[in-house]
């Protein structure tokens, strides 16, 4: 089963790691029930919903006991990072958006038959096709 890819935390972020309930309708990431937005009918993740409510997010949360203000917290977080130039620390996986499969194109040795040589292509000669 996929794990929830939402990041929790405010000052330092960490992976949620809970089993995913569904995929977010906007970003397609697997998300657990706790990180789904109630106002979107539990179809979008809190991060995607926070993008839409950013303007209102810096206001105070309500005090209605029946409302879980996690949605407000994510909106506030997004607004705060932008307005205060704050970049949080990340823990666990480097970035839940990119897994090993996505990162393969950044692997220096991939694509060259001779792993020990970099900077030239497979022909071994340095010419205009080499970086």
């Amino acid at each position, binding site marked *: 089963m996929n794990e929830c890819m939402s990041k929790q935390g*405010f000052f330092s972020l960490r992976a949620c790691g809970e089993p995913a309930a569904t995929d977010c309708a906007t970003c397609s990431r697997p998300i657990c029930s706790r990180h789904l937005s109630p106002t979107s009918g539990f179809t979008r993740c809190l991060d995607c919903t926070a993008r839409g409510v950013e303007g209102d997010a810096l206001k105070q949360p309500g*005090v209605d006991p029946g409302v879980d203000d*996690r949605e407000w*917290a994510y909106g*506030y977080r997004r607004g705060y990072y932008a307005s205060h130039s704050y970049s949080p620390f990340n*823990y666990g996986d480097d970035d839940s958006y990119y897994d090993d499969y996505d990162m393969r194109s950044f692997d220096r040795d991939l694509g060259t038959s001779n792993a020990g040589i970099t900077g030239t292509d497979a022909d071994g000669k340095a010419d205009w096709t080499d970086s």
Partner: protein
Amino acid sequence: MSATGLLKSLSDEQKAILAEKKVKLNRPADELLNLLKPIAAFDVAAAPARKQAGCSLAVLIVLSVIVAIYGLNQEGNLRTVCLALAGAFIVAAIVNGRTWGRLKGADVSDNLSNIVIPFLTILREDVAPAEPVTLDIDLTAADAKKKLTQTIEPKTKGYPKLVTSVFMNPWFEGNAVFADGTQLKWKVIDRLRVTKKTKKNPRGKIKTKTKTKVRSDVRVTMAFPTKRYAPKHNAVPGEKRHEVKLAKRTKGAADTPQGFPMLIDLIADGYRKVTSQKGAAR
């Protein structure tokens, strides 16, 4: 739901907090929010209800006096009707007075809904779900008599008369351990300065104006685990935790609380003073 309905729906523990106006707890953030949010919801609903009950009380007393005086000067059935009406107004005034008294007695500081609830909502994201957060909150009024520290009286008699009262209100204190191992302690102290200026105009009319200013002192102490965070400055070799102390002070009107953004800014500033070790990336 009405304010009185909300008051009735509170649990015994929540009613005890309203009666004492003090919170001294050590529980997970979710539990604290579940406990404190209904109290804050009641307090927000009670403010306009209390005002309405107070105004109705004054109107009913005036009406009952007018109707009673008018009735006493009449004869026959009209006298009976007026006195009965005055009696009904008095009963309604008593009911309103009791409601006002109950709501006034259960009134807590607006800091609960303006600062504590938003701060706990943010803190919950950084603290592990089972990890307890320690809170020590004083929800009594900032200008309570026991908080009065200084009164500056005018040296000479006569007008204009200026009386300044200073109240110290150390109302919010607590500590928590974040999921990344960082220990956090905070303290908020409000210093209230109430200035009463009394003037007498040439016709002999006396007017008093009251101005209130609040100075908020927010102090935050953070201890970062050096396994995860390396201090940018003042690193002590071999230390397990690097302690950072931060403080901020703002002045403003009494109705614009600054405690919540100040607390968030100070904790963010604390994180800006460290860099990541292995395992944490920015």
